[in-house]
């Protein structure tokens, strides 16, 4: 498999800042990929030129879980140029419906086909009773939900034959029956099921603002060794709450939280996730450069 990226797929322990605990250096550690983007049709042509700032791409799994045609043709082109990771939106790991075995089989087949560096989805549920809401619905943070999610993550990891990453979602509701904080819940899921975490910095900020908790407390509650990837994105200010739209530039508040996250978690593969209101290509690259400019001095100092 040809990879033209300038990034060596170094193990997580190699070249990582010294503040990362030794537990990160497990033999099956996933590679550090650098700074990347979400693959979106709007940027296909620009990405084919293999801009050096973009070191890897995240693809939405469901868009390529198809039988043939143009999507897979494009995907093969990008696979020749970039390291890829797969990011799904439909696993519904927290649902009380049975896991969709057809979905998992197709996901596994795609992973086998494109050999992504890793596979991720969200810590949420997307539907129940056979109905899909196509939204990332929050869970109650209870022991019951924890046991339920952990057993399902283990099953998925068995099917995919790899550890998965779960992403924290933005939320607008919380439930009276919750016994744990969100960060305690996600940390417990990761530890008990031996999965990894995709930390969406924007989502931490959105949920912290909407629920009135401290985003710094959140970061401090997440185990360093579990964080494999960062998402950066923008949000929209609603009437009373902030809405995770992923359709705006990364806000100053999220950049500040990103700096805090780099200080805590060290060298973590980072990407801008833009889902709508696509800006000019140069603006998106400038955002990615900004992430790099914020993180690299901190990482050098820590080394």
């Amino acid at each position, binding site marked *: 498999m040809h990879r033209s990226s300038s990034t060596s797929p170094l193990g997580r322990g190699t070249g990582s800042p010294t503040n990362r605990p030794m537990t990160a250096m497990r033999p099956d550690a996933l590679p550090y990929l650098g700074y990347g983007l979400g693959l979106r049709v709007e940027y296909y042509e620009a990405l084919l030129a293999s801009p050096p700032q973009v070191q890897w791409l995240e693809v939405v799994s*469901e868009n390529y*879980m*198809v*039988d*043939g*045609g*143009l*999507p*897979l*043709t494009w995907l093969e082109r990008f696979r020749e140029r970039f390291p890829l990771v797969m990011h799904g939106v*439909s696993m*519904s790991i927290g*649902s*009380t419906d049975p896991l*969709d075995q057809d*979905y998992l089989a197709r996901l596994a087949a795609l992973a086998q086909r494109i050999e992504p560096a890793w596979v991720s989805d969200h810590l949420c*549920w*997307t*539907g*129940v*009773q*056979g*109905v*899909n*809401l*196509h*939204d990332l*619905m929050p*869970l*109650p943070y*209870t022991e*019951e*939900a924890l046991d*339920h999610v952990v057993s399902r993550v283990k099953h998925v990891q068995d099917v995919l034959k790899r550890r998965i990453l779960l992403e924290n979602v933005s939320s*607008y*509701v*919380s*439930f*009276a*029956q919750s016994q744990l904080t969100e960060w305690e819940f996600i940390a417990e899921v990761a530890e008990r099921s031996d999965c990894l975490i995709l930390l969406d910095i924007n989502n931490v900020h959105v949920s912290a603002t*909407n629920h*009135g908790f401290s985003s710094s407390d959140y970061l401090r509650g997440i185990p360093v060794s579990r964080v494999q990837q960062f998402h950066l994105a923008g949000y929209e200010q*609603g009437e*009373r*709450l902030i*809405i995770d739209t992923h359709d705006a530039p990364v806000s100053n508040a999220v950049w500040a939280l990103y700096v805090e996250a780099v200080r805590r978690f060290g060298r973590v593969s980072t990407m801008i996730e833009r889902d709508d209101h696509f800006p000019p290509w140069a603006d998106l690259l400038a955002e990615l450069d900004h992430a790099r400019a914020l993180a690299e001095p901190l990482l050098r100092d820590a080394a």
Partner: protein
Amino acid sequence: MSALQQLQQQMLQAVMGGATQAHMIEVRGDVVADAQSRLDIYRHGYRVRLRDALANEFVGLQSIAGRRFRALLDAYIDTHPSEHYNIRWYGSRLATFLDNTHRQTPQLAEMARLDWAISTAFDAANETHLSAGELAAVPPHAWADLRLSLLRDLQVLPCTCNVDAFRRAADNGSERPHLRRYAAPRHMLVWRLDTQVHYRRLEEDEWQVLSAAQHGAPFAQLCATLAARHGETVALPRMVALLQAWLSAGLVHGLGTAA
């Protein structure tokens, strides 16, 4: 039923517009926003997402329905929960829904059916297609029993009006055409050649022969069908012309013979 299952079912009902209120699911409210307005974000997002997904797939329907389009989508959303993990499949029952709810305006269902056929052809399984050279290699004695194996995902749709013109105008951003009803029902062919989806109206004789080929009729029978319609002298050149068109459009996947 577990507490988690109960919460998810109540939340589902609340988001889909049921009577479930925030206090029934023990959603917390605070000074920033009360519980109901928090829940309303999910409720609003649900409808917007489904509407957007349909609008992406049904650009021809949007053109032909005009100002009625949004109401059509909302009526569909109100009666059709999404059951597929990928929102891209949400519109699979829209044409049938329009068949049942808009019998006086069949162009709506026909348009939805063409939009959907284009959408599903886009990422259908890849298939190889037969070249003219491969067909030319068939020995003369074998032609009578020859069966053309057409693309598996080739679709033939009946239509009573010029829905293809609406789709074309929508794709090209050109002026919306006038609705034109045909004197007799016709058929629309939808297929994909490599990565490009195509659609075109079929002539009546072409539809007859193509249908026969799809049902496994041997080449002699295809010619007989044309002869019955046009007479012997016209049938063969017409068959040759159709074959050439089908080959260059990539409609023929392979060849077989009578069992």
